[in-house]
């Protein structure tokens, strides 16, 4: 076991020596990989930051029926009752939100409180919030909204969840896009490490020949190259996190100010530490894998 550790320590030493022997070339490779890695990392930061905001929003199939401002107080209740009786199979429930209830809900939101305080009276209408039943509500909601919009005392009908659903679809699209970018970057990592190891293997040809001559196993020969791939990948991933962190801190300075002007708090943040640790390990593993393939192909002499 001690011999095994000694050989790994030797391999790591050889790797670091080889990296140090060509500092500019090694640094250039690491920078290329880390900048490529920083792109999906920034994308992940945006998704990680936006996701909680979106998941807190209601995506249920809701339709709000707004009554005309001058409509009698009982018209909202009558509309709700008509919806329940005529479209009972299409809906789960229909509840009335009076203009007073709506105002008090808005006042509880600090972003609106100041604006509402300066208004002389309640500008909000009575409304009926309808929750649809079933799953195919996309086309059904449009049809129902068109019908209800023609009823007496109804001002207009709004599909509440539509924009949230659009936003979620956009996020799903961004997720897929991020996955594709990450795959592309993985190819960049594989190709860069493959080529680095190939160049190293060719320049270390004499050393490999000698090692084999004196009884080195193929594992012994390959080990420093695997470390080279893993170390290059690992350092690049850590640099990428650092670069993404720096970029986010600059972006956040402007973003926090912008969000505050809307009376809210929002900032972009990197994924959690566990996720980042996994990211470093994954890139290091990817580097080692690429090195393994490269060294097997380029040390057949």
């Amino acid at each position, binding site marked *: 076991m001690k011999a095994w550790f000694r050989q790994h320590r030797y391999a790591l030493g050889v790797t670091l020596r080889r990296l140090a022997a060509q500092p500019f070339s090694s640094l250039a490779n690491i920078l290329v990989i880390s900048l490529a890695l920083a792109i999906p990392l920034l994308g992940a930061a945006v998704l990680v930051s936006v996701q909680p905001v979106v998941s807190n929003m209601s995506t249920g199939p809701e339709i709000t029926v707004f009554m005309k401002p001058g409509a009698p107080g009982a018209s909202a209740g009558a509309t709700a009752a008509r919806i329940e009786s005529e479209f009972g199979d299409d809906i789960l429930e229909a509840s009335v939100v009076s203009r007073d209830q709506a105002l008090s809900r808005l006042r509880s939101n600090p972003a609106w409180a100041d604006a509402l305080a300066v208004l002389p009276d309640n500008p909000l209408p009575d409304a009926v919030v309808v929750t649809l039943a079933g799953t195919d509500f996309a086309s059904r909601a449009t049809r129902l909204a068109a019908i209800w919009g023609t009823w007496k005392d109804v001002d207009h009908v709004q599909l509440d969840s539509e924009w949230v659903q659009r936003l979620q679809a956009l996020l799903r699209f961004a997720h897929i896009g991020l996955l594709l970018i990450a795959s592309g970057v993985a190819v960049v990592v594989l190709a860069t490490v493959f080529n680095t190891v190939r160049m190293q293997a060719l320049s270390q040809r004499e050393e490999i020949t000698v090692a084999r001559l*004196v009884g080195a196993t193929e594992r012994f020969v390959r080990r420093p190259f695997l470390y080279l791939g893993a170390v290059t990948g690992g350092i690049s991933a850590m640099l990428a996190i650092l670069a993404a962190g720096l970029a986010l801190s600059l972006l956040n300075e402007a973003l926090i100010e912008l969000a505050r002007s809307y009376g809210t708090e929002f900032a972009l943040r990197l994924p959690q530490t566990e996720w980042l640790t996994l990211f470093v390990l994954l890139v290091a593993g990817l580097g080692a894998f690429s090195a393994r393939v490269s060294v097997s192909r380029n040390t057949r002499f």
Partner: protein
Amino acid sequence: MIEFSHVFKSYGRGVNALADASFHVEAGEFVFVAGPSGAGKSTLLKLVAGLIPPSRGKIQVNGQDLVKLTPRARPYLRRAVGVILQNTHLLNDRSAFENVLMPLIVTGHDHLTATARARAAIEKVGLAGKETRRPIELSGGDQQRLAIARAIVNRPAILIADEPTANLDQASAERIIDVFRDFNRVGVTMLIATHDQALIASHTHRVLHVDNGRVTDYIVPAPSKAAQRGAA
């Protein structure tokens, strides 16, 4: 120790570097492999070291059948066979000491043992005081000595050398052969390829003569005292 049985080795169509070679070398023997350049001496030594496979026939080295030897087992055979090739394959980016240390790192020796053994090997070949020099800073004879030190540092049972005295003057060549004799005296089996007839004739040795891939086996008698006086 070394057994060749109807061994053939060809590198291309119809070019036999070795043809139907059969011989046996006992443990502790000192054998010269003689013959003109291109006769197949290097091929024979590489076959013994397991560096190349035979085209046909059976080779046993140190109790192992080289034809059946798996790629995983091959490195362990090489640890038992010290090899000094015509191209010494010394690493010029490392010191003489680090060159000798390498086989001990490969075999996983601890630092103290490795250092002590590398130092002893360097002293044994007469390179004490030149440990920090790089191979390129050493003379041809010293480079050969360094290659020998690297080959013997893992205490192999067999030592093979391909033209170790080529490009050396007579005195340096004699000193190299003396180093080999010292190892042979402690039981190391020696197989040395050379085309230097004067060197072969200088002592009683068994000789495997290779010519056009054919191997013949004979003993060179001890030179007469008159001949030795004449040479002196």
